[in-house]
């Protein structure tokens, strides 16, 4: 038995089936597609989250706000609300962009590593992993 080969096969199998399942899912996307999808998801989540926060603020301070409200104050409040939303969205978009870029790079690196390991396995025993079964699904 080729212990080195068995170890490599176990490592690859473990990565594919357990440890790196999420990363391999990410690696299937193009970087731009993945980032676009995550930014869109971020937009919806931050919008809903901000609306909830505004709702909670109004619940907590509704009475005091309604007591001394003037038209000019209302304009300032709406402007502040929209400004806060834009700031929050910008902050979370940047954060999402950075984290998702890192995740995608890591996933691609892992995919390359797996492909390399599979190539090595194929080189070691071409009879077993023939050309008709080449690719990640062979192990």
């Amino acid at each position, binding site marked *: 038995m080729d212990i080195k080969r068995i170890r490599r096969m176990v490592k690859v199998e473990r990565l594919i089936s357990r440890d790196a399942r999420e990363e391999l899912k990410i690696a299937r996307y193009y970087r731009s597609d993945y980032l676009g999808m995550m930014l869109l998801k971020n937009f919806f989540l931050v919008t809903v*989250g901000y609306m909830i926060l505004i709702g*909670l603020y109004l619940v*907590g301070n509704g009475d005091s706000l309604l007591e001394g409200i003037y038209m000019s104050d209302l304009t300032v409040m709406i402007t502040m609300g929209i400004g806060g939303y834009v700031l929050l969205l910008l902050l*979370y978009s940047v954060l999402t962009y950075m984290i998702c870029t890192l995740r995608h790079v890591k996933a691609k*690196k892992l995919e*390359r*590593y797996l492909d*390399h390991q599979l190539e090595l396995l194929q080189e070691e025993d071409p009879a077993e992993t023939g050309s008709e079964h080449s690719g990640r699904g062979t192990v």
Partner: protein
Amino acid sequence: MKDLLGFREKCISFSEEYGFILFPICKFAVAFAAFRMINAALGYMTQMNNLFLVLLMSLISAVTPVSIMVLLAGLLVVVQCYAVHLLVAVFMLVVFFLLYIFFLRFAPNMGLALILMPIACRLGVPSVLPVACGLLGGPAGVIGVCGGGVIYSAMSVVIQNAPSLQNSSSAGSLSAMVQEALPLLTLLLDGLLKNAELMLMLIALATTLLIVYFVRRMSMDYAWHIAIVGGTLSYAVLILAGGFFMDMDVSFLQLFLSSAVAVAVGEGIRFFCFQVDYSSTQHLQFEDDEYYYYVKAVPKTAWLEERRQRAKKTAAQKKRAQGRPAAVKSPVGRTAPAQPAVSAAPDFHRQQRHPSSADPLEMPAVDFRDQLEETLRNIQDL
């Protein structure tokens, strides 16, 4: 020490061999403790306190990913809160949802910390989790630990206000419900957002975790010991100082016990995850075309012990073969020539600064250059 190391090796090999059954059992135990804790703390819906139901949920959690355990625990909390008042359940859902939107989605693997933190708080040992997460994970653990702290505080707010909340009814017209809802929500929100104790705890938890994480990654000797003690001390000092300046009641005994448990757990984790022999540290310096390398190599204790055993065995065999007395010790622990790396590359300078490295049985010669080159090759393969 040898016995302890032997015990460690046995534990590790046992967990490797029976990991497929051990991990589900551990998950079952954590889930069972979490669900029981939720029922014991909130326990307003008697149907949910059923042991069979708790066992069933724990069993499901044991065989599914951790995220399912988190989901089930969250559902249990919401259902228990619903028994108090509909608005309390809505409040809890909103807290969970906001936590997910603004924090938890960036750290998807923090489910276990999120579950364990309320348990640790309930047991009165909150500093255990940041120490453990700092030793085993990264700075993203702050999200899990602090998220768990917020959930525990939200549960505490519900428990404190439950009698007054239960007295108010949720029936009637819509306008009556809205009229009633506002003060209730304000009560719950104030309990969570204007809670100085919660803020202090979150700051202390985050600081402790970051201190433990950054210190244990340092290359200084005994970094893990210092990280555990330093992190625990920082938690205690922050809580004491915060309690002093914010006029809060801090139980010295509980803080001391919590710190002692945190140090014990941290040392336990260190024993299983990071066993090195600092007395055999080697400092190496060499260069290639692009870089100068300053390497500090600290051998793992298990490996060193294995080498010592092997060296003793080989020495005994040689002694028997030669029929000579055991007075002369030969450097049989060496597997490589005396200075192979130096002769192979003139730029390589091996520096063994530690005095204890004179005895070959104490400090077996290792070709670190070869090992480093192999590691670099592996990295390049990536």
